């Protein structure tokens, strides 16, 4: 049993857990959408004084902040007590592509430590990935009115055409980044 938990979990375990979380939140009277916490953070910091968009009661999002706090704790628990030492099982063609990007950290972890570190933040490559990447996420998700949880899960589950358009947008942007821009950025 312990061994099974320490193996990576397949999609047919993860997908139903996401659906269960979505459904429980609905039963609690809340709608699943994590990027709303970013807007609440702006409001909390006082951005509502000048910009009406942030002038709302951020306390209505405290439950969401508790949820993301829990997800940080969950990440800690999984990383420290529920992982084995096996490297990720990525597809062979992905591994070839990663090597062309000079990334080796997939052998030892689940995120690229070559770029996600403090020294790298002060290089062009690291700055683009972390700071520009974050700006794009924040700006885009609010313009589109939601991120993966709000549109790809909640919106599609409620058969919303706007969410389908947003998800198509996510993929247009994602494909441009993956095939056109990442090869340039990672070789800077």
């Amino acid at each position, binding site marked *: 049993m312990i061994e099974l938990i320490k193996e990576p979990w397949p999609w047919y375990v993860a997908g139903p*857990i*996401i659906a269960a979380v979505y459904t429980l939140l609905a039963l*609690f009277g809340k709608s699943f959408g994590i990027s709303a916490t970013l807007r609440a953070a702006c409001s909390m910091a006082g951005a509502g004084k000048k910009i009406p968009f942030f002038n709302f009661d951020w306390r209505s999002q405290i439950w969401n902040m508790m949820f993301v706090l829990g997800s940080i704790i969950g990440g800690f*628990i999984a990383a420290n007590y529920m992982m084995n030492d096996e490297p990720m099982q990525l597809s062979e063609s992905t591994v070839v592509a990663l090597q062309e990007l000079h990334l080796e950290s997939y052998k030892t972890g689940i995120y690229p430590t070559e770029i996600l570190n403090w020294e790298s933040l002060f290089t062009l490559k690291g700055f*683009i990935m972390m700071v520009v990447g974050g700006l794009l996420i*924040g700006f885009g998700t609010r313009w589109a009115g939601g991120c993966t949880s709000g549109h*790809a899960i909640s919106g599609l589950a409620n058969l919303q055409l706007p969410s389908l358009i947003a998800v198509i947008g996510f993929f247009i942007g994602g494909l441009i980044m993956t*095939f056109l821009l990442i090869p340039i950025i990672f070789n800077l």
Partner: protein
Amino acid sequence: MSYLKYILLGIVFGIMFTKAEIISWFRIYEMFRFESFHMYGVIGSAVALSALSTWVIKKLNVKDIGGNPIVFSPKAMSVPRYLYGGIIFGLGWALTGACPGPLYTLIGNGAYMAIVIIISAIIGTYFYGLLRDKLPH
């Protein structure tokens, strides 16, 4: 104490995000290269089952724990806001390898640089608020 259930749900979520490698930059890269079914299976099965539970809740008029009707508010129809906003978000998702949920869970995984990405995302959200009236919706 009423917030405890959200923390517990979040913990389950964070564990699942980590164990199914959804927080992995490499998995998102693999997904956008269409080289594995994993992420499509995760999102596809999550959407299918969520759609089923949404349908049941509507059909049976299920009330929430406070006794209030559960409302799934429809989203106002438009193309530019969802398409342009979606494209910009997609660029950021593929670049950082994380959407907002995984960004938080990454912190628990010891990827403290995710904090820099989250702060940048909050600033990005602020920029949107600043420019909102000038953007097509």
